[in-house]
């Protein structure tokens, strides 16, 4: 318990120090990293707890972003209201998607989320009257309160950091709660959970909706960070990017996805500075790290951490040894 507190304090300190010590670009990068960490967390909640690999988590971010752009720019609704409506609408979409996918498993779940995600992407691309099509909707800005411009990189950082931290802590609690353990149990042995009288479908459904809402939060920041909402964040490329980050960092742990996102973003901007073949370099790094650390970087670090100390409570997931 003590070590966990230390870890949280260290993360807090780093989050506070970053905008004070670093240049504008590094802060902007951190903003993106935190936004995608939320999306990757949303992915990992399903992948790590339920074994559900979703390709539509970025779609929820996109739905949330489009809601803000459409209501805020087209209809001129005020800032806090559009955010609430966006989260509400994203949650509703997650309810609909959840009803469609809750009974599916593994590949069929993957394909369903792929289809749903691509449908929304196509809609954003072709429903020009509403979404602005390929050109998107420009001019999505946060307001200025009494001289405090929320669009300023560092002010925006504070908003994103506080929210991201709060969401991660909430999910941390969730993972340790009976509900979180039930999800793990379902992944382990669905029949047994059912036999024990747990509402398996309901639990899955709730997890799916929760994950969708978390992605919706990411979408809120994503659209304000960009200032423009276009179909590109809903594309398959972004969904796969989030999946890659989560797998690289380790989707079974809480902080693995955030780690994966940070590494990927740092790699991308670093390597792209030196060569046009940056995708090759990143691909190679991914290949090696997945070969050497199939359960993700976070898992490797946690194993190491644990060997030196008492095992943590149920923060880490099962140790089923060599599962595929």
């Amino acid at each position, binding site marked *: 318990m003590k070590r966990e507190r230390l870890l949280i304090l260290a993360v807090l300190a780093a989050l506070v120090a970053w905008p004070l010590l670093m240049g504008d670009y590094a802060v902007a990068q951190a903003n993106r990293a935190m936004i995608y960490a939320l999306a990757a967390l949303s992915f990992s909640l399903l992948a790590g707890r339920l074994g559900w690999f979703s390709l539509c988590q970025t779609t929820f971010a996109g739905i949330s972003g489009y809601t803000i752009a459409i209501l805020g720019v087209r209809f001129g609704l005020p800032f806090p209201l559009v955010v609430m409506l966006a989260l509400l609408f994203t949650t509703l979409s997650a309810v609909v998607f959840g009803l469609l996918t809750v009974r599916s498993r593994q590949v069929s779940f993957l394909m369903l989320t792929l289809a749903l995600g691509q449908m929304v992407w196509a809609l954003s691309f072709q429903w020009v009257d509403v979404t602005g099509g390929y050109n998107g909707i420009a001019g999505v800005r946060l307001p200025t309160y009494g001289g405090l411009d929320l669009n300023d990189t560092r002010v925006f950082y504070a908003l994103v950091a506080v929210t991201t931290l709060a969401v991660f802590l909430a999910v941390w609690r969730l993972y340790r709660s009976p509900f979180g353990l039930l999800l793990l149990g379902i992944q382990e042995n669905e029949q047994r959970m059912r036999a024990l009288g747990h509402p398996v479908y309901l639990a899955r459904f709730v997890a799916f909706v929760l994950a969708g809402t978390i992605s919706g939060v990411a979408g809120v920041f994503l659209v304000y960070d960009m200032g423009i909402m276009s179909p590109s964040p809903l594309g398959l490329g972004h969904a796969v990017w989030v999946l890659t980050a989560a797998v690289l960092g380790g989707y079974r742990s809480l902080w693995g996805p955030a780690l994966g996102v940070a590494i990927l973003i740092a790699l991308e901007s670093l390597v*792209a500075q030196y060569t046009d073949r940056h995708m090759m370099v990143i691909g190679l790094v991914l290949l090696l790290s997945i070969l050497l650390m199939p359960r993700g970087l976070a898992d490797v670090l946690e194993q190491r951490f644990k060997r030196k100390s008492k095992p943590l409570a149920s923060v880490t997931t099962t140790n089923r040894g060599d599962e595929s």
Partner: protein
Amino acid sequence: MKYAKSLMLGSVSALTLASGAQLQADDTIRIGVVGPTTGVFSFFGEQQRMGVELAMEQLSDRLDERNIEVEFYDSQGDAETTVDRLRAMESRDDVDLVIGPVLGGTGLAGLEWAQGSGMPMVISYSAPEDITMRNRVENVVRAGWTGAQPMFAFGRYVAEELGHKRIVMVGQDYSFPYNQAGGFLKTFCRAGGESVERIWHPTGTSDYSSILATLPEGDAVLYNGAGSDGLAFFQQYHDFGLDARMPLLGGSNFFAVGDLPEMGEAALGGLSALQYAEGLENDNFVAFRDAFREMHGDDTMPLAPAEHGYVAFEMAVKAIESADGAERKAVIAALRESEMPDAPRGPFHLDDYGNPVQNIYINEVQEVDGRLVNVPIETYSDVSQFGPFDPEEYLAGEPDSRDFPPGDCSDPYYD
């Protein structure tokens, strides 16, 4: 474990390096060039890059004199990555002026960013008209075109010179073709045309049999799109034997020189319109084309994105020279006054909104020295982004969309 450790170390040092505030406070002036040099659209970004490289070589004395450095950035054709690279330029690399982006969506994202930042920006090939119209900002000018611009001339040409009354237009369903259709309709209908029937298909369609089998009658078909969709349409159009019934006209990028070898001889005589033609024969253009092919290989034909990058770079250097430095206000003022009498594509100057007023060429596919190229057969000079229309009236009107302007030329809109 060893690997994990080194990976951790690596990532930590990567983060530190990536974030290192490298703001250099010296008298070097930096130009950042952004375009998609990887990904699906890398062709366009590579063309821009090659054009800029040629301009760099030709202007090297002037670059040395002003201590100008150039840095290339990869947008991956993605709006978000574009904004990220632009931020890196401004706050990490101390860039003073940006050239690019190249694609439509990235152009609008770049514009949105530039509005907040105030960075002088010369957009090269990116064509959404609102960049220099409804969303225009002081610090952004364009060296290229709007989607409607060449079609203003083409609409007139098709109605007046070819005498077609009814056009069937098949196009890719997104904003660039809408804008091309809009420009075409606005002049076609006023020059004696009767109707344009639009049929939109999703991008990435490879089978056009259902469209071709039910194609309405008209005097000609205009394919409003490009790339692999355009190629597939072209081939199936000929397989169906429709070319014997109705001639096939093209949107601005349809008869792109890269696709011509695959279209083959059937493409001969194909008409389209653009502010550029690889078959131009004036001295400036021939010098540009020869130098380009000498630098980048004989098989690499410079296309519009290359010329636009080349010209955008020259505009930037001129602006820095006449502003006597990189002070933003002065550079922006100089950019807005840009006049390019010797541009390879022909002389142009910027209008009050920051978009070139330039020649539009009606191009015909011809065989020159065993190669299929677009040869200009007619020139409309001084065409602006508003075509023959009054800018204020144009801006007050509705933006082009899927079904605007009306396809029926007797509509009161055209009175």
